[in-house]
């Protein structure tokens, strides 16, 4: 995160911009936690690593295309879209396969079983990446040019604008999908009462796969955005980011889509403010985030936008 501004108000605005951009990434990943939790009541601890695999594969693809410096114009648009599509396909497919192989066989098992399975999958995903690309960080080909909109002593990087605009667009699309499409209705019905949904003719397995697909796609896109903002790949990048995004989902009210979006942006801003304004902020910012998690769980377990309507009457 770069803070170039010199005045105190400039620093504040710059910090907010950085926070909102990272918040967009957290929000996209948080959506995956919340959608999956909403439908199968599982905290998918492997989700952060599903995100990481998008950064890993796009890194390898970019290297094999010999991209190492900024590109411009249509090349930039084309390359950005290509990476987004690759990231989305990789993480979407991965999430669907994980559900099929690791979680579905345990669907009727006690809840702890799939949770442990998720932790196991997380280790598997990290270890494979570590074996493949090594344990040390690799710099990500930052093909997005520097520069941005200058407002006084504040510079809003173009990449920040692109990430936030595309994220908001994806969220709008997700809302439409869940509200208005048949698949979205099937997801909502399954989340509320899977047996009753099956009695309406909803194919439960297909709907659950679809939920994992949507969550994975969003994490895949987030992986590309993250890599362009913080251009360093590491096999364990998904661990911490996953926990922060999970906190965002809990903060917004796990299972609640709007909550995850709001929670993501909120955590991004809080983390950026803590990094910049607390002494040793970059070391403390995670502690601040998890202190918030503990507070939310203690004071408002259903989250800021948690369900108000009772499930069963």
């Amino acid at each position, binding site marked *: 995160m770069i803070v170039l501004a010199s005045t105190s108000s400039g620093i504040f605005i710059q910090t907010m911009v950085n926070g909102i951009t990272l918040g967009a990434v957290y929000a996209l990943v948080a959506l995956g936690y919340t959608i999956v939790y909403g439908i199968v009541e599982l905290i998918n601890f492997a989700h952060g690593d599903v995100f990481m695999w998008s950064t890993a594969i796009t890194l390898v693809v970019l290297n094999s295309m010999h991209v190492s410096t900024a590109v411009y114009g249509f090349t930039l648009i084309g390359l950005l879209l290509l990476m987004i599509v690759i990231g989305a396909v990789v993480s979407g497919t991965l999430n669907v396969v994980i559900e099929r192989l690791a979680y579905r066989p345990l669907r009727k098992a006690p809840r702890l079983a799939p949770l442990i399975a998720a932790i196991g999958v997380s280790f598997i995903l990290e270890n494979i990446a570590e074996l493949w690309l090594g344990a040390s960080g690799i710099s990500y080909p930052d093909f997005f040019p520097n520069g941005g909109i200058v407002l006084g002593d504040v510079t809003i990087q173009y990449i920040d604008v692109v990430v936030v605009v595309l994220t908001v667009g994806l969220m709008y699309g997700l809302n439409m999908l869940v509200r208005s499409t048949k698949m979205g*209705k099937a997801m909502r019905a399954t989340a*509320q009462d899977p047996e*009753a*949904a099956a009695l309406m*003719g*909803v*194919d439960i397995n297909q709907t659950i796969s679809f939920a994992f697909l949507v969550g994975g796609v969003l994490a895949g896109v987030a992986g590309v955005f993250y890599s362009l903002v913080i251009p360093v790949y590491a096999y364990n990048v998904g661990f911490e980011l996953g926990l922060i995004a999970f906190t965002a989902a809990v903060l917004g009210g796990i299972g609640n889509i709007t909550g995850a979006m709001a929670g993501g942006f909120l955590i991004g801003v809080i983390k950026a403010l803590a990094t910049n304004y607390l002494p040793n902020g970059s070391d403390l910012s995670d502690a601040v985030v998890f202190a918030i998690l503990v507070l939310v769980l203690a004071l408002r377990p259903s989250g800021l936008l948690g369900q108000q309507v009772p*499930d069963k*009457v």
Partner: protein
Amino acid sequence: MDGKLKALKSMLELQNINTFYGPSHVLQDMTVKVNQGEIVCLLGANAAGKTTTMKTIFGLVKPKDGKVMFKGERIDTLKTDQIIKKGIILSPEGRRVFSRMTVRENLEMGAFMFTNTTQVAEDIDKVYALFPRLKERDKQISGTMSGGEQQMLAIGRALMARPQLLCLDEPSLGLSPILVQTVFDTIHKIRQDGVTIFLVEQNAFMALSNADRGYVLQSGKIIMEDTAQNLLKNDTVRAAYLGG
């Protein structure tokens, strides 16, 4: 009774069904038949296996052996969402409406297998004609409605699937006597529209007064089967289910 005048055509048949929950043998060699145009009720005390019978028919629980036939076709090998596409639908025990959806969204869910939105909108109007109360609540979140309204919604939602056979699991449970009467009046109206009805009830008097035939289920076994009129007069039934 209308049913007797027509040739008896089998709609639903449970043939020697055995269903287990773990080690407990819940349905024991159960055989039940529902003919086209009939209202058939299945009576039994709590835990006799009534809801398990419904779950077995709809594939929510798989029988260990025996067959479930719908219009001559075996359905116990199918998944729930495939079973209901055959034209058989369940209004489940405890209503199970989607409490965070509006009344209209619930009805749309009932028509989930159809893609023709004009048809769905027309069917919603038909349900609203049957239950004017629901029409007033069109946009209300269904979890905030009373139990009686939710029961109407559950039945209306089941009708949205355009079923040939409507199965109702305890439709009168928890309702006031006036509402129970309304529910049974509605059941007759639904039958007049050509829908066959299979009903599970604890309220034996209401069920037998409104049904053509009945079965009595005790500890997972069918112990009696007769016309509803005969069952109403039967001493065992009177003693066990009608309060003497």
